[in-house]
């Protein structure tokens, strides 16, 4: 039998001799990430089982990131329930609330490694696919199952091979590629599928850029968005973990339901209009649209590469007085690095507001909620109705470069015009 990356990893995590798409298997989980969802239904349901322990307290990565620090009493209570549970069951990797956004902190700390099977109580858990592992989002009942047994049911997905060649041009980012891809396949075009990213472009894509792509595959419905491994990934991992791992590559004759190629040099800056990430426009079509808020942050685009390009655009300039810009570094580590590089000072001098690392604005939770009819240009991942605040507000999604350029002008702007 020849296997895709997803099939190989499922095979190594199950007792099944043969793996094929559509088959139901039970697989052993290497790591589970859980955030504030723990304080929702998970802790109540788990307590009802009457167990004294969890299957493996060393394989649980727990972090508070959505509503930190708590903006409401109910969020504060939720945090209390989370902490109590984490202490009671002796979670080894209890990250607390000051490290940043789960999908940034977990890889930074070396918890996502090639060949692993990771699940998380968050749909953007697909992010870790950038590290050549299988990772995907699950709901509360699934988390309870993993806490109790370490095993979960899966259906083996068909795989799509996405071949990337040539390089992105100046001012164009991996966000522009993934938005283009989602528009091409639609929000349901990759439902249940495992996307495998291949091709000569990968070596020139930074780990940050790869994470943005894997992060957003779920917006096309995908179960996984896994990258081929390379030297750049191995070098990245040297500084992050001393745990062993083995790189996973598909068999030469592995079967793909779809094979598609993208010439990255043909991608240009794009924007996803409300109300879903597939509603694509080229930046030129929307140039001049006034924006009330520019948001740079989230698990999709709050990394160093994103902050650096924004700083290049904003350095020595003032943000348009009719627009507010909110910048949320994705983790404390990034916040500190940005400080050391002088980026935070550039942002503050340009008139931007810097927040602590949190999911805050992206989920309409706090630190950048939208009022009636307000328009936000955001580097985040979802532009659903009401996601960032009032249901009459509108979210447009774009790359960090486009967000920064537009903040400067107060209206949607092609970043290639302002990058020097």
């Amino acid at each position, binding site marked *: 039998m020849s296997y895709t990356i997803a099939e190989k990893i499922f095979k190594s995590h199950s007792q099944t001799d043969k793996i094929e798409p559509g088959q*139901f298997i039970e697989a052993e989980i290497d790591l589970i990430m859980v955030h504030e969802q723990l304080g929702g239904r998970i802790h109540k349901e788990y307590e009802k089982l009457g167990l004294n322990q969890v299957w493996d307290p060393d394989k649980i990565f727990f972090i508070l990131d959505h509503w930190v620090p708590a903006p409401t009493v109910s969020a504060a209570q939720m945090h209390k329930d989370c902490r109590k549970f984490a202490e009671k069951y002796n979670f080894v990797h209890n990250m607390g609330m000051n490290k940043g956004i789960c999908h940034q902190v977990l890889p930074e700390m070396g918890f996502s490694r090639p060949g692993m099977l990771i699940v998380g109580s968050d749909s953007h858990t697909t992010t870790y696919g950038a590290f050549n592992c299988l990772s995907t989002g699950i709901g509360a009942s699934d988390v309870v199952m993993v806490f109790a047994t370490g095993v979960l049911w899966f259906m083996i997905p068909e795989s799509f091979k996405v071949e990337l060649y040539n390089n992105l041009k100046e001012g164009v980012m991996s966000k522009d590629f993934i938005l283009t891809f989602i528009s091409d396949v639609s929000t349901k075009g990759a439902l249940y599928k495992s996307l495998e990213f291949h091709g000569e472009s990968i070596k020139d894509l930074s780990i940050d850029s790869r994470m943005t792509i894997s992060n957003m595959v779920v917006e096309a419905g995908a179960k996984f968005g896994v990258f081929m491994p390379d030297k750049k990934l191995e070098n990245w991992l040297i500084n992050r973990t001393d745990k062993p791992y083995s790189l996973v590559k598909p068999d030469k004759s592995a079967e793909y339901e779809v094979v598609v190629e993208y010439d990255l040099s043909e991608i240009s800056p794009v924007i996803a209009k409300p109300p879903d990430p597939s509603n694509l426009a080229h930046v030129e079509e929307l140039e001049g649209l006034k924006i009330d808020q520019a948001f740079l942050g989230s698990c999709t685009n709050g990394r160093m590469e994103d902050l650096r390009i924004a700083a290049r655009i904003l350095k020595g300039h003032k943000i348009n007085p009719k627009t507010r810009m909110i910048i949320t570094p994705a983790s404390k580590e990034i916040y500190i690095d940005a400080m050391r590089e002088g980026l935070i000072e550039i942002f503050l001098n340009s008139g931007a507001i810097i927040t602590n690392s949190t999911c805050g604005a992206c989920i309409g939770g706090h630190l950048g909620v939208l009022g009636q009819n307000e328009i936000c240009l955001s580097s985040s991942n979802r532009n*659903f109705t009401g*996601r960032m605040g009032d249901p009459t507000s509108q979210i447009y999604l774009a790359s960090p470069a486009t967000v920064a350029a537009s903040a400067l002008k107060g209206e949607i702007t092609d970043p290639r015009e302002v990058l020097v």
Partner: protein
Amino acid sequence: MDKIEGFVYILGDDINTDAIVPSHALTMRDSNEMAKYTLEFIDPDFVKKTKSLDIIVAGENFGTGSSREEAVKVFKNLGIKAVIAKSFARIYFRNLINSGMPAIKLKWQDANFKNGDAIKIDLNSGNIINQTQKLSLKFPKLPKFIMEVLEEGGIIKRLKKKFD
């Protein structure tokens, strides 16, 4: 479990979890309180309508978006008995099955269902009878594994049984 009778409530394509349970309701500790906000942006009268309508019939990619299982829980709290959709978002499908809520994939046409239609679903035979429109529709039967989970009332109840 194998036979479900109820009345249809129709929803469109790409109904997302943020629309089913808005973020502002997500930190509420009382699930009945949370359920009051179900689909508030899409149909402010939805909760009232669930007094008489109890089977959701949705379009493509139902439940797209976040992993919040609350987006299934609120439907359960409101007495929804089953969900039929042209397609389901992946995590949402898991959450429905794991919660013991029948999730039926059916590429239905506009003429097949109207709001308020009385329907009967037979999970074992893969058949839906729309008594109001006087028609019968076939759907792909759920895999054996999923039927087992549904029969046991969801994965947590299934797990409890194992421990007992």
